[in-house]
């Protein structure tokens, strides 16, 4: 955002008060804080308006493709490092159906992409899009497959460098807002015209960043507003350097021609799987791949979830009574907090003991045991309430609960409130297997 003084210079300086602020400077300050809209000023010149909108725009444009709830959002990032604030829009993953695979092969790929969704820590993680690519197959099959894909839920990328055929594919699904891949030096004007005519996002591709910036600028000036950049990613080294350079140019230098989301198109080798992971960490807004074995996709989605977690908002698990193994009413019960990291660590340590148990997760707004205890979010009262709410005494007849060793101080009060026997557990959950074995033995 520009500063109040930068905005003030562009205002009419009439101090007319019609914007409801006494002076233009006061209005500029409100604008800088995004408290009012520029439209409140009746006298602002069109040039100033363009300049202000331009300078107020985010460093990387938000570009979406697809429609409805599953529409894919890319860009709108403001940081080089997630610890400085957060990364906003998780890398869009797409599976490529190539017409060399024939119509049935392409249909199978479309179904495969739709089937790849997983629930993890209360979030749905999925492959977010389908790309249909024309290579050596028949143009009819290609268009038919685009139609099949567009009739389903996931957003579609049309991968075809022949503008005439791409246009036919677009006609099969124009209302679904597909992404067009791609404008190169050889088809530039026709692809730009197609994207502009149908208001579609367009991938612009060039071998060097210099040419890429020029091409993106040219596409923008020709009237394409949603641009996605494809830099060279021939090697991983190219990919890291180019993606980093684009992000820096956009975010640090406010270099508008590169202020767009990025895409990386990969093959299906193990090396490409690691490149996809690189894309998630280092600034690829979208990654399209030829093949996505599930044993690779699941960890990749977990990585994306990790990297795009807001550092200020910890991932939480739902409070409640969790089974570890197949516990009975004689199995031990213990509690911990709903900070996902704490929960997973405790759970893994219980599993190591191979003794089935009940794990009561108390809502601490995602804080770990010590932090929650210090902040008054893990108290004898809140634990007693969770014991009540989640019917711990109905599920276990032991009338005993194990508390984390770090909060042994609350054992007296907790015993009083619940009438249960309180066993102080280890300070670190790594000590749980030993305790569990002694309890069951």
């Amino acid at each position, binding site marked *: 955002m520009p500063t109040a003084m930068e905005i003030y210079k562009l205002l009419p300086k009439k101090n007319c008060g019609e914007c409801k602020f006494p002076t233009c400077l006061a209005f500029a300050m409100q604008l800088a804080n995004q408290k009012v809209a520029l439209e409140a000023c009746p006298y602002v010149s069109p040039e100033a308006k363009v300049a202000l909108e331009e300078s107020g725009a985010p460093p990387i444009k938000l570009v979406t493709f697809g429609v409805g709830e599953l529409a894919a959002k890319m860009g709108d990032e403001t940081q080089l*490092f*997630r*610890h400085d604030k957060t990364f906003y829009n998780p890398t869009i993953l797409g599976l490529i159906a190539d017409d060399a695979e024939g119509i049935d092969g392409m249909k199978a790929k479309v179904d495969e992409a739709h089937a790849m969704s*997983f629930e*993890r820590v209360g979030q749905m993680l999925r492959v977010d899009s389908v790309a249909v690519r024309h290579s050596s197959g028949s143009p009819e099959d290609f268009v038919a497959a685009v139609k099949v894909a567009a009739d389903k839920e996931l957003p579609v990328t049309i991968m075809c460098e022949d503008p005439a055929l791409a246009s036919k594919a677009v006609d099969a699904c124009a209302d679904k807002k597909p992404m067009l891949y791609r404008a190169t030096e050889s088809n530039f004007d026709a692809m730009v015209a197609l994207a502009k005519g149908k208001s579609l996002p367009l991938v612009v591709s060039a071998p*060097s*960043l*210099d040419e890429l*910036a020029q091409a993106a600028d040219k596409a923008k000036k020709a009237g394409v507003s949603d641009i996605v950049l494809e830099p060279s990613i021939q*090697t*991983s*080294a190219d990919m*890291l*350097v180019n993606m*980093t*350079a684009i992000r*820096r*140019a956009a975010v*640090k*230098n406010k270099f508008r021609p*590169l202020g767009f989301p990025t895409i990386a198109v990969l093959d299906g080798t*193990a*090396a490409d*799987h*690691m*490149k996809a*992971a*690189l894309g998630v*960490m*280092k600034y690829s807004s979208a990654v399209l791949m030829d093949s996505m*074995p*599930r*044993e*690779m*996709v*699941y*960890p*990749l989605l*977990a*990585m994306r979830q*990790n*990297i795009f*977690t807001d*550092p200020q908002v910890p991932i939480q698990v739902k409070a409640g009574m969790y089974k570890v193994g197949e516990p009975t009413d004689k199995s031990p019960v213990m509690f911990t907090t709903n900070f*996902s*990291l704490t929960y*997973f*660590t405790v*759970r*893994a340590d219980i*599993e190591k003991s191979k003794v089935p148990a009940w794990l009561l997760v108390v809502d601490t707004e995602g804080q770990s045991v010590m932090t929650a205890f210090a902040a008054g979010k893990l108290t004898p009262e809140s634990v007693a309430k969770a014991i009540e709410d989640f019917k711990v005494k109905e599920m276990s007849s032991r009338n005993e609960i194990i508390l984390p060793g770090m909060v042994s101080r609350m054992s007296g009060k907790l015993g009083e409130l619940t009438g249960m026997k309180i066993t102080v557990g280890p300070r670190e959950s790594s000590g749980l297997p*030993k305790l569990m074995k002694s309890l069951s033995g």
Partner: protein
Amino acid sequence: MGFELPKEKFGGRIKEVAIGATKDQGGTRSARLVAGGSNGLPFLKFESEMPHMPLVAMDVVDTVRMVPDRLQESMGAVVNDPVEWAKKCESEWGADMCVLKLQSANPEEENRPAEELEGLVDKMLKGVALPMAVYGCGFEEKDAKVIEKVSNVAKGERLFLGLAEEKAFKSIAAASMANGHGVVAFSNLDINLAKQMNILLLDFGMKPENIMMDPLMAPLGMGLEYSYSNIERLRLGALSGDPVLQMPMICDCSCAWNVPEALEDNPERGNAEMRGVYWEAMTAFSAAVAGADVVIMRHPKSIVMFREAVNALAGGA
């Protein structure tokens, strides 16, 4: 006018730390490895130097109690014998170095006496020529005895001894200083704690070139984001010129094998063994992309995947 790559120049540089001593240097190791040395963000060679690739240390645990079943299946019978395990790391699996974890010293489990472990380390040094780190079991009193003996029996080999922690570092630091070994300084996922740990060791009399930092690697799916950002911040802190943060980082990515969802049989999530392999490879890859100088890994296939990925990133074949 052409577009110029926006470059970042930093004033600081990661210290170079040597691991292992060859015959010429008073030891019997096959190589002297160097970790660190970079003066920029990882793999961005257009603006900075990266004289050494991230090293791959394979961990060897001296009790199968700590080795998940899935790994035992993958790695075979050698997991029952630490020396055989380490030999395999050296001859077949392409490790740069080994980290021997003396978990059987644990007084609440096997409680093997320090003398026996001294014997094991001696046998290890005679059977395997890789540079080595040796970690205790995490119980301070026991580790003090064990690490002292290890330090003596490995005199001249320039091991890295671990883990030095804020509340338990003096015995390990003393053992390393007595015989020219290095120390791995552990801190719990926090840049300030990492700095504090280094200050404690320096104040105790250790030289910075004898310290590597273990800032706690959380695996993929179990807090990777904390470690990733912590490593990035440590690296940026070091590059900005803070000498107390310029020690190389060693990140233990074998933690990936503690993640239940990486190991469980669940066909929805694909082949279980390969899922574990990806889990570890991606954990280690993220550590290297963020700024790790040494990664500790377990599965031979993960290591192949990791090496290919970092070599490609460094612009190699």
